[in-house]
């Protein structure tokens, strides 16, 4: 029968907790793991590859739920740098704020930040979806290649700098657009996309209030005759 396992980081090391999550979950028939006393420690619940619910009860440090596959991880607090870095699938939710590089290089899955996400949110994302209920800091979506970033609050400077094919949606103000990022017309598909993502993340907002930012594709090809400035 499915059951809840409690792990306490006041008594266990990160390695012990992660080894349990990687190797012993199956045999333990655990459907839910509650991790206590995270105290800002790094790499908690990184590298999961199983359908399991993980609750981290407090603030976590860097790389929490990194490389996540299948699992549904909720951090009940704030997180440090690179939450859900390289996420492949599953869901990672942060009830507080996130520091830099949320879901960096994420390939799939959904990352929800209920508070604000700081700079470089979604940097180099490759297909994951990110929903931030609050604001994002500077350089959100930097070099983002695929996937969708939904910002319900405001975006800081240089949004979408050197953007590839990821699409960014912002409900509030945009401090400035980065190089090669441009605001584009919203299409019915965009409205549909935002509706689905808001529903999946449990956020109530009107999809029609969002602006769309995508690549102007002017940086795709090197122009040797153009005057270059660095």
């Amino acid at each position: 029968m499915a059951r809840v396992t409690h792990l306490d980081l006041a008594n266990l090391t990160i390695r012990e907790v992660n080894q349990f999550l990687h190797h012993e979950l199956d045999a333990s028939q655990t459907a839910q793991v509650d991790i206590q006393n995270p105290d800002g420690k790094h790499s908690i619940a990184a590298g999961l590859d199983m359908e399991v619910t993980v609750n981290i009860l407090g603030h976590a440090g860097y790389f929490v739920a990194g490389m996540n596959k299948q699992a549904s991880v909720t951090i009940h607090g704030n997180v440090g740098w690179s939450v859900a870095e390289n996420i492949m699938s599953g869901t990672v939710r942060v009830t507080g704020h996130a520091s830099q590089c949320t879901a960096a290089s994420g390939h799939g899955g959904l990352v929800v930040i209920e508070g604000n996400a700081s700079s470089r949110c979604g940097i180099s994302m490759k297909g994951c979806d990110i929903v931030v209920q609050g604001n994002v800091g500077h350089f959100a979506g930097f070099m983002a290649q695929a996937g969708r970033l939904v910002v319900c609050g405001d975006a800081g400077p240089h949004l979408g700098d050197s953007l590839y094919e990821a699409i960014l949606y912002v409900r509030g103000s945009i401090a400035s657009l980065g190089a090669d990022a441009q605001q584009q017309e919203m299409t019915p598909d965009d409205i549909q996309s935002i509706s689905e993502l808001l529903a999946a993340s449990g956020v109530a907002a009107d999809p029609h209030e969002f602006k769309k930012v995508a690549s102007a594709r002017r940086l795709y090809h090197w122009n040797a005759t153009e005057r270059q400035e660095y």
Partner: protein
Amino acid sequence: MCGIVGILLKTEALRPSLGKLATPMLECMGTRGPDSAGLAVFQNTLEEPQRRYSLRAQQPDFDWQHWQADWPDPQLGTLETQGAHASLISSCPVTQVHEFLQLFSADVRLLATGRAIRLFKDEGHPIEISRRCALPELQGTHAVGHTRMATESVVSPEHAHPFTAGEDFCLVHNGSLSNPYSVRRKLERRGIAFETDNDTEAGCRFLQWRMREGDTLEEAIHRSFRELDGFFTFLMATAGKLVLVRDGFSCKPAVVAETDEYVAVGSEFRSLAHLPGIVNADVFEPSPEQIYSWHV
């Protein structure tokens, strides 16, 4: 990498525990900076004309008694020692004490001067330094600490942070400046002397020079956005306040936790996790180029 920590206590009741609160913060950040560490604490301000001089001897087993016996003026002041560190409280003119330390004390280095600041810094792991300097026993209103992972200049006690300039001012730095030599040349032309080739010292002396010219610390920091090129999270303290700022890119981390009893700053939340009432603290990441000041 490097780690920075700082705490300002808002209530009188916590002040005897300043060292006990700040030391685990510093030790925790040993993972970000294992090669040297330092802590500056600000204590009850001495009456004029008294000054406290924080000193460190070059030898770990330095004989302070013997050194004191050789003072040209036995009335120079009172000495309190802790291993290789010492605190000299003197009512003599500052220039006289500085001259004495320079001319007669090749084995003793001056770390800080002021009416409130007391500074410890050395080479070695932060846990080791906390123990050697008995940091948990320190009392005061606020503290600033640093754990160093050297990247741009040698590992030595002199290159450890906090850096000081003038009186009752210190600075710790996570990051690296890319134009410290041009800043330094500019300051040296104005007669400002340097003790190391460290980039942070250039930043510290630049800010103190601006304050000497009449800027507030906040105005000096605004000017530094144009003059200092590079990455930085700076945490600074004067006798009355704790000030935090990050450069425009904010590649170097910082997190702030504030309660009714204290405000604490660390490179990582881990370093703050032991603080009382942290669960209900207002925890936030400082924004780029925004100056945060907290007053005693």
